């Protein structure tokens, strides 16, 4: 294991520990961790096991999902500006969730919202595949993704526009900002299998993405099955991003910024970037979720807002650096 991977793993571990001990309960750190492992009959065990643990696990796996999916998408499209939302999965998952809130399905049934979001993600990805076709150049996938994203975005706006109920409308708006607050272990069990499947699929793309450094023609001549690569990429991304959006809402910038930040540390190899970005994404989301709790603990600051606030200046810095290199 390379030094980068060790350093990132250590960072993620430290952030998981921090995410577990930092919170409004303000219990001593040692007591908190002890209460997680040993049920001492105090409410602290409940706080640790039912509130902070699922939150930390979700931040870890969703961050890893967004990071790896972003790296895979950038590698496949050979474009550092690609992000996992590009194929329309997050927009269509959000549409599903918004419909669940609007129709009252979310209130009627505990998993109404995440299941509706997953259904939206599945429909969105099927539509993208139908539009883009199983084979062909990567540009068709981008175009299909843009079509589905904008369609889902337009329908979401339509729902908001026609919403007779201002409470539902504000709930929708806040849900779309993305958050990990008040998620339970049930959310973890819903998202985790899909995320594990998706990460496993994306992790198989290493060789193919490395070969694609030379372009689609050369990659194919190196024995890479581009049709299979594309299908695996879309299925893997849909699984991780669909599941993530279903339980946490839309969280932007992680999939865009993390691969970009880590690329120089892996010698720009798109294959090696996959797991590095998974760890980096996990670290970024854990850190952002800690920030949400520390900065404005009483205001329910939304996670997606923080990742965008942190991500945009980071990205600006990268653009500035690139510009200097080009000059």
């Amino acid at each position, binding site marked *: 294991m390379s030094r980068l991977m060790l350093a990132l793993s250590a960072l993620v571990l430290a952030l998981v520990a921090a995410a577990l001990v930092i919170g409004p309960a303000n219990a001593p750190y040692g007591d908190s961790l002890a209460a997680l492992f040993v049920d001492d009959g105090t409410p602290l065990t409940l706080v640790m096991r039912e509130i902070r643990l699922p939150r930390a696990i979700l931040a870890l796996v969703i961050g890893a999902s967004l990071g790896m999916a972003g790296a895979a998408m950038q590698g496949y499209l050979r474009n550092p500006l690609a992000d996992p939302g590009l194929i329309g999965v997050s927009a269509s998952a959000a549409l599903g969730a918004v419909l669940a809130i609007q129709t009252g399905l979310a209130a009627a049934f505990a998993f109404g919202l995440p299941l509706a979001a997953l259904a939206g993600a599945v429909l969105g990805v099927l539509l993208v595949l139908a539009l883009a076709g199983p084979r062909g150049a990567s540009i068709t996938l981008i175009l299909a993704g843009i079509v589905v994203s904008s369609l889902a975005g337009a329908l979401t706006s339509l729902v908001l526009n026609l919403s007779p109920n201002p409470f539902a409308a504000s709930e929708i708006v806040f849900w779309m900002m993305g958050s990990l607050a008040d998620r339970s272990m049930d959310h973890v069990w819903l998202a985790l299998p899909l995320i594990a499947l998706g990460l496993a699929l994306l992790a198989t793309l290493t060789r193919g993405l490395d070969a*694609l450094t030379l372009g689609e*023609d*050369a990659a194919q*001549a190196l*024995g890479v099955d581009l049709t299979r690569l594309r299908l695996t990429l879309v299925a893997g991304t849909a699984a991780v991003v669909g599941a993530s959006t279903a339980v946490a809402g839309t969280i932007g910038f992680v999939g865009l910024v993390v691969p970009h930040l880590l*690329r120089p540390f892996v010698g720009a*190899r*798109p294959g090696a970037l996959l797991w590095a970005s998974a760890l980096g994404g996990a670290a970024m989301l854990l850190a952002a979720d800690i920030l949400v709790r520390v900065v404005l603990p009483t205001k329910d600051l939304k996670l997606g807002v923080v990742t965008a606030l942190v991500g945009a200046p980071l990205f600006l810095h990268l653009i500035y650096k690139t510009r200097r290199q080009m000059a």
Partner: protein
Amino acid sequence: MTLLSVSGLTMERGKHMILRDVSFSIGKGELIGLIGSNGAGKTTLLRAVLGLLPAAGHSSLATLPQRARARQAAWMPQAREVAWPVSVERLVSLGRLPHLGAGQPIGRTDRAAIDGAIADMGLEDFRHRTATDLSGGELARVLIARTLAQDTPLVLADEPIAGLDPAHQIQTMRLFAGLAVAGRSAVVSIHDLGLAARHCTRLMLLGGGRLVADGAPGDVLTPDNLTEHFNIIAHFAQTEAGPIFQPLDVVGMD
């Protein structure tokens, strides 16, 4: 032994016939120059032979499974695409992908092939440079090295020497000729008929998607073929210094 046999390869795109009934076979130890004017179908032929484009007819490479094909033939596309700022060494080592199982690290044979290819293309000093920072000609040499590292019996290269300086053009053609001497074979599409005449053991002339001439350079670069398919007249002589070919004038272009 034949490394490649192609028969009746035909491709239509809309009303246009891009390839018409192309048949040939390639044995060991040949350096074949694929020549023809712009749009004659050279790139299409090479891609169809590899199975990268669907075409009617038969190509022994296109029918192989993808991994097996990648061990049989290496392909250098004309577009010198390198998407990420990887080092020259890493780029060349991509040529070893068809020889490695999933997750298998680079072994001793792979290392030898990579080092050999880097040495063959005179890239020792560039080994740790970033590929995307190189000049066009330098990058072309790196991509040729990548193709050589694949260590296949057959190499197909689309205009590999375009954009190289004269010394590296000659060196690269000698290198391909060296592959042929060692029992491998190479097909290179090439516009420089002088270099083609000097270095290739065989020329294949494409005109309008048809293989109109196939044989020794002297038999293919006839005045009639040059006028009909290249619209030029040229001086072509066998001298003590080898064959010398120099285009002189344009004919028949309105």
